[in-house]
């Protein structure tokens, strides 16, 4: 058994596994909640309509005005520029370089968490969208006509974003990590990858149009936007407005490939949570087997991780498809394809719960670094102190192990309830007969119980 030496990772601390008694309580509450969900359901769909309530006209005009949008876009471009510059010119130590924490913690975890509460807050700050729109406006001004675009092949749907999502997480936890550390990526590699992704994204925007690519293929827009569908702020008829929470999620998955995006999210988080716990022994066996075949250790490790990440994707997809097949047996069911897209959005709360359960503590701790030494000394040179916070650090005492456990289990239970709510509501659309709708939901209930209990199980054997 020969693991590679651990790289210097961002995470100086790992979560303790959830204790057995809390695991048992969590699982029991999930079952009781599920039981009541079946008995006490409403009879008419309630989340299909957004019920927009516009906010103040002045606030709307200010936030949606062209200067404001240009400003938000500039902020996005500036921060991306800082991250790339720090990655290229800064220290090699991932924990001292602005780039990694900004890209993989502040952005990658922060936007899902806050979008789920507020709405799609990434859109105004999206640096590639800002550059694309500015380029489009410049083209229109010079050429005297709007740029022409190819028609996007609609059957591809959101598949480019799903594959991109797997690639981003792969770079972070497979390519970057050697032996299960949470982000051990070389900042230089992260910066080069960001530049390559920027070139690819701008090219795709030029081909298919800025907004089209943001809706279909731009990984961050699609991924953060998915969680934004849970939030309660949006734009309706050119005005900022409040909508019924969850209502925007019900129309999210109509584009093909959406199920793949949410499944990829659950699968990659599962993989990262399981590699140091539930899958540890199996992964070590496969690693030994591959390494014995005469492949270099780093390659063998990455190959093992890749195989298990793809297995997670297949496993999550299989559980979901089993639920879909089950619902198909209920009289009056629509086609399998329609059920598959029709219920994909019900997994968004599960994906969010998995993210919170696995990364909440990392986010709270690493954001302290983000706003102290990483902000004042982005390159990690130890000679810069832009805002006088370079000597600050992470206070690990802000979260006790108990606080982390309660947030983890609470997130999974809450995600379970939201997922059941969305599934029940959608079933009422497909089966106007209440009894048939309920019958179909035994299947989705089994799917959700499987995901939630698997999530609890992962926590209980984490870092084992």
């Amino acid at each position, binding site marked *: 058994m020969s693991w590679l*030496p651990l790289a210097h990772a961002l995470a100086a601390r790992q979560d303790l596994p959830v204790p057995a008694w809390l*695991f048992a309580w969590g699982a029991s509450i999930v079952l009781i909640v599920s039981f009541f969900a079946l008995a006490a359901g409403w009879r008419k769909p309630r989340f299909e309509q957004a019920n927009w309530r516009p906010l103040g006209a002045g606030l709307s005009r200010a936030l949606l005005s062209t200067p404001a949008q240009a400003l938000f876009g500039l902020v996005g471009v500036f921060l991306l520029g800082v991250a790339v510059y720090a990655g290229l010119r800064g220290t090699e130590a991932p924990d001292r370089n602005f780039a990694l924490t900004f890209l993989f913690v502040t952005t990658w975890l922060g936007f899902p968490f806050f979008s789920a509460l507020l709405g799609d807050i990434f859109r105004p700050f999206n640096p590639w969208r800002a550059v694309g729109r500015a380029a489009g406006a410049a083209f229109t001004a010079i050429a005297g006509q709007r740029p022409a675009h190819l028609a996007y092949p609609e059957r591809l749907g959101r598949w480019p974003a799903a594959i991109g999502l797997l690639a981003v997480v792969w770079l972070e936890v497979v390519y970057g990590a050697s032996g299960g550390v949470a982000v051990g990526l070389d900042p230089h590699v992260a910066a080069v990858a960001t530049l390559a992704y920027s070139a690819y994204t701008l090219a795709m925007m030029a081909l298919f149009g800025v907004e089209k690519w943001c809706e279909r293929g731009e990984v961050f827009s699609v991924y953060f936007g998915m969680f934004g569908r849970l939030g309660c702020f949006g734009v309706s008829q050119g005005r900022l407005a409040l909508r019924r929470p969850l209502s925007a999620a019900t129309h999210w998955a109509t584009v093909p490939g959406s199920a793949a995006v949410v499944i990829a999210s659950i699968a990659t988080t599962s993989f990262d949570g399981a590699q140091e716990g539930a899958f540890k022994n199996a992964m070590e066996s496969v690693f030994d087997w591959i390494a014995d075949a005469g492949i270099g250790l780093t390659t063998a490790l990455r190959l093992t991780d890749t195989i298990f990440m793809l297995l997670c994707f297949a496993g999550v997809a299989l559980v979901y498809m089993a639920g879909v097949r089950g619902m198909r047996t209920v009289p009056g069911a629509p086609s399998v394809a329609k059920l598959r897209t029709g219920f994909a959005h019900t997994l968004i709360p599960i994906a969010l719960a998995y993210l919170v359960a696995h990364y909440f503590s990392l986010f709270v701790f690493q954001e302290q670094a983000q706003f102290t030494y990483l902000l004042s000394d982005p390159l990690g040179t130890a000679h810069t102190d832009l805002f006088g916070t370079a000597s600050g650090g992470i206070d690990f005492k802000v979260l006790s192990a108990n606080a982390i456990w309660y947030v983890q289990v609470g997130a999974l239970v809450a995600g379970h309830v939201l997922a059941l709510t969305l599934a029940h509501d959608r079933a009422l659309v497909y089966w106007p007969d209440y009894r048939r709708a309920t019958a179909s939901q035994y299947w989705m209930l089994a799917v959700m119980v499987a995901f939630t209990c698997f999530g609890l199980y992962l926590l209980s054997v984490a870092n084992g």
Partner: protein
Amino acid sequence: MKHSRTALLLLATFAAALALAACGGGDDTTDTGGAATTAPTDESGATAADTTAEKPSVLTIVVRDGEPVGGIQELEFDSGEQIRFKVRSDAAEEIHVHGYDVVEEVAAGGTVEFDFPAEIEGIFEAELEELGVQIAELRVNP
């Protein structure tokens, strides 16, 4: 007919989840049962440090050729206790306990003692700073 089927389904789900809870719980109980007592830590310490005549309560991690003898040592403490262990190394090294950010230097052939309060709960690595090799895993339980 329909009702009995749904009841059966529910029962099956219930049973499956309970079984899951039970076996997950069972696993964990044995885990903590074995690890909560200090005995295994001391035992592994004794095997790693059988050449030195240390008091059995303080574990000594022996580093030879840039690696911990007997593999990565697992140490377990309760919040509020003192974290105490020693490191003996055949080469000069700097030993870093992550999270707590405690760093001690050890000379070639020398021994260094760590002794600090367990204030932060969680799992932490102790590593040889220069080589980037992990020598111990510290668990601080609430």
